[in-house]
């Protein structure tokens, strides 16, 4: 399949003009030659195979790949839930994990928003949001709740402070979870297919809400999905992964200007990106299917 070359895309992205501006921002992640094996050495399953790419600071990087390809493994390594078998990961030039320290320590500078949501159902929304600073001992109770209330109001979540997560819709739950993460001023947000379980209407609202949060906070976002349209709509950079073992197959810099809204979906440029990548994603999906990868 012949792919029309696009100036801003390529296998090894060249530093853009914005690079200097981004250097001041936090949350850039460098993934260098990362390998992850599951199981016993030699007899294990290779989940991530010599994977190298950058997550530029202050941008949204979306990783697309078939289900079960190992992209979540990568996210878990950054978050500090899993160890690496080889390679290293840097956050703002500081090594998170690598030779001599195979597993990063989970911490409030890298906060995960989980696939199925992980608001604590036994805590009210505001208790959930104030949880981080209180656990870290950074704020008094009064300060934490004051900030939580302000942030909820900012995010349009006023009035549900005293409700439990089980009492609000799943879309609103995701927003509460993102606010809970932002409470800690993280350098990077790690989103693991956060909108997978939502219907497509809610999803489109959530996408715009996420962009709005991003424009306000300019926090670096690492976003995992298997939805190509979602990836191109949200991302500054889209990394298309091969099926297991996962490795970048194609890295695109999406030059559709931000701020974006849903009108972007019907533009010619968006369609061009879709056309350019659909074949690559489809090819991997077929391979994944042939390899018998199951939907987890």
């Amino acid at each position, binding site marked *: 399949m012949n792919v029309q070359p696009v100036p801003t895309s390529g296998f090894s992205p060249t530093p853009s003009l914005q690079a200097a501006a981004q250097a001041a921002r936090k949350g850039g992640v460098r993934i260098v030659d990362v390998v992850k094996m599951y199981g016993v050495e030699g007899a294990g399953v290779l989940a991530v195979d010599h994977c190298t790419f950058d997550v530029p600071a202050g941008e949204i990087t979306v990783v697309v790949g078939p289900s079960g390809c190992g992209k979540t493994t990568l996210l878990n390594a950054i978050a500090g839930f899993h160890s690496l078998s080889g390679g290293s990961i840097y956050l703002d030039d500081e090594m998170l994990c690598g030779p001599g320290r195979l597993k990063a320590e*989970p911490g409030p500078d890298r906060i*995960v928003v989980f696939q199925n949501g*992980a608001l*604590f159902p036994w*805590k009210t929304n505001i208790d959930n949001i104030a949880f981080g600073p209180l656990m870290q001992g950074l704020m008094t109770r009064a300060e934490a709740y004051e900030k939580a209330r302000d942030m909820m109001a900012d995010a349009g979540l006023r009035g549900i402070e005293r409700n439990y997560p089980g009492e609000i819709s799943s879309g609103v739950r995701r927003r509460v979870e993102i606010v809970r993460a932002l409470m800690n001023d993280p350098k990077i947000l790690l989103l693991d297919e956060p909108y997978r379980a939502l219907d497509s209407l809610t999803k489109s609202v959530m996408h715009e809400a996420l962009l709005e949060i991003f424009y306000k906070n300019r926090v670096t976002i690492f976003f995992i999905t298997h939805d190509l349209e979602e990836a191109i709509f949200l991302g500054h950079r889209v990394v298309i992964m091969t099926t297991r073992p996962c490795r970048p197959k194609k890295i695109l810099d999406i030059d559709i200007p931000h701020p974006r809204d849903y009108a972007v979906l019907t533009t010619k440029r968006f369609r061009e990106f879709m056309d350019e990548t659909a074949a690559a994603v489809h090819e991997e999906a077929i391979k994944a299917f042939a390899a018998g990868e199951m939907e987890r």
Partner: protein
Amino acid sequence: MSEVELASFRGTDARRAMTSDTVSQATSLALTMYRLSSWLKSPRPYLMLIGFAGFLGFWYLAVEIWKLPRFAEMPGLTQVLTEWLSRDPTYGLSIFMEEYYLHIWVSTRRIAIAFFLATAIGVPLGLFLGWSKRFMQFVFPVFELLRPVPPLAWVPLAIVMFHGSETPVIFLTFLASFYATALNTMLGVESIDVSYVRAASCLGAKRWQVFRHIIVPGALPYIFTGLQISVGVAWFSLVAGEMVSGQYGLGYVINTSYTMVRYPTIIIGMVTLGIVGYVTSAAIRLLGDYMMQWRTRELALGGER
């Protein structure tokens, strides 16, 4: 006059506003009252009454009217009721006798002590079994080997180990209770989605903070299921224990009434056990609803009551 009317109108309005506010805050008590009223409006209580009437009616007819084989020897409904409600019971036990309440009190006290001990030891043990793989690896096999041994099989050892008649009975009651509580608590910890633990550590919670804020509340639904089972089996083994050893108590009443051929008193003991057992189990359910309002509200939203 119109002003007075207006004021009173405002008064009702304010009261109405207050009521709606209370409802939206849905305290446990308000929720219970709401459930009670909707229960009375539903057909369920009336179906329940019909069920009871059918059961009691069959008892009455089978024993006292038709005198069916095998039923003829049983005490009949009217005989039991007159005995139970009599100021001067033929066999010495009715709701007017002080001794009746002494039996209830002794049994309840044993249950309370055994249940309290089982909870105080079983819940922490279960939490640590689920929380620490290492701890589980050396405790759980022993636990699993002891668990299938029925409390009744412990009777001789209990009598040898503990002096008097009171402690062996409490020990037997404790045993059954303890297994149910510990096991369910452990399952509760294991049921917690790993995402919650990960999210907490992302948000900067230390190990013991994760234990206090995630593990304990996350296991609570299973813990309360365990406590419901626990109080049920506590009554079960209490009666067994009281039949073997001990003085006073409902199990003792049933057993001595059998040897002394006071058949109606057996039934009185059984019915009383049913009522007291139901009350204890309902009390635990209420406590659970109160402690897990997040869950009660979630279920209420799902249309389950």
